[in-house]
């Protein structure tokens, strides 16, 4: 019978905190990066230029149809070879995860935009707004509000996806857990602690998203 010893976690509190800090900063960075990429890709999808639509679609499907772990490894090992540049594990991870997130955000944003009543675009145009101004002032604010639950759900997935950066030895929560496990010979306790940490951060967030979803369901 295995004897659990959770008291030992206290000795590794700084290791875990550091990991949590890296995971949270990483998530913040790839959510912002992903949203920017997603917004640009969505605009291209809705562009009147076929070439932009094709490029955007190619990008989105490439990142949606390959596993994120493969993208991460590919960005770190293969991309530098092809492009002749050096990428640190952190840069490669940020790049891969932002693009992966961007591909999914793009679909959400595109869906949000086309769900807005075309009358809004007509009204904006009739007032003399250019399509770009109408998008920025009239369409996007409404679309973003409507799709915010979906964007938050995707961001929660992004939070969990950051765990993959541990394969490139980026010291996130999982990587730090691994280190602590090797060091203490207590992998069960350490991985339990890692799981609890993820849950403690994500569970309140999912509750929040649920409440938003309910709110949006009400006043459609």
């Amino acid at each position, binding site marked *: 019978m295995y004897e659990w010893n959770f008291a030992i976690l206290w000795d590794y509190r700084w290791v875990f905190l550091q990991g949590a800090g890296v995971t949270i900063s990483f998530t913040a960075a790839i959510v912002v990066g992903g949203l920017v990429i997603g917004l640009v890709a969505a605009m291209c999808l809705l562009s009147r230029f076929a070439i932009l639509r094709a490029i955007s679609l190619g990008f989105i499907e490439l990142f949606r149809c390959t596993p994120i772990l493969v993208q991460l490894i590919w960005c770190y090992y293969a991309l530098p070879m092809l492009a002749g540049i050096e990428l640190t594990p952190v840069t490669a991870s940020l790049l891969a995860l932002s693009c992966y997130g961007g591909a999914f955000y793009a679909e959400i944003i595109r869906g949000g935009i086309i769900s807005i009543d075309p009358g809004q675009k007509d009204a904006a145009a009739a007032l*003399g707004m250019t399509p770009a101004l109408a998008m920025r002032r009239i369409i996007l604010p409404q679309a973003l509000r409507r799709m915010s639950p979906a964007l938050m759900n995707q961001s929660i997935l992004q939070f969990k996806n950051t765990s993959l950066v541990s394969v490139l030895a980026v010291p996130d929560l999982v990587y730090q857990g691994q280190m602590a496990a090797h060091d203490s010979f207590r992998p069960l306790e350490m991985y339990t602690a890692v799981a609890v940490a993820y849950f403690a951060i994500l569970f309140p967030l999912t509750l929040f998203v649920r409440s938003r979803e309910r709110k949006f369901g009400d006043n459609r």
Partner: protein
Amino acid sequence: MTGAPMIEITGLRKSFGPLEVLKDINLQVPTGGVVALLGPSGSGKSTLLRCLNLLVVPDDGSIRVGNTSFTFGKSLQHPKVKPLAAFRSRTGMVFQNFNLFPHMTVLENVIEAPIYVKGMRRKDAVDLAMSLLDKVGLADRANQRPETLSGGQKQRVAIARALAMTPEVMLFDEATSALDPELVGEVLQTMQKLAADGMTMVIVTHEITFARDVADRVVFMRDGYVVEEGPAREVIDSPKMEATKNFLSHFHKGATPR
């Protein structure tokens, strides 16, 4: 009402795919004139109105509003984004479904285009908006959301929003068709006041009595053609063409309540 007409349309054509919706339309509206566009569903009234501010770009013909004219044709370039927007900023349009911006208050709806299209200072835009909201009787609703207003109030806000750009021309596409009957009057009254103030207006409507009383001229359309055109009372009281007689007979039987 002297000098060149405010609106001049010649040889206008528009097709959607194989469907030709406007077939050689010619029309003039004098400055300060009010023209009512009548006709059965699908006759091309909305399309013609949307061509007037180029929400729909015609295939052929030419349009002049005030000092700006556009000529269309297969060999000619599609107008550019900036001139299009500038042109539209000088024509106001009011839609059947109001199309207010739901994420903004009534006041924000009205000041949006003066600030972001014209570059007006916020304070000036607010002053202008408040005077227009006062004119349509809704100054006390300035800080409410559109969703809290009745249909008639929404449409009056939409009129104020269009007027805030000080347009040369106002276009109305069935502005009262989505309203409960008891709310139609307040919107028609607002439109009538506007006409009395000398605004050049093109009105698509099914309110025959209103067209007869407020419009100077009536244009009757069917299947993409102008079938009959003339002074409002003359065309409505004693139409010459068979199609016009037929159409109007539906209304005379069950006159729309005012």
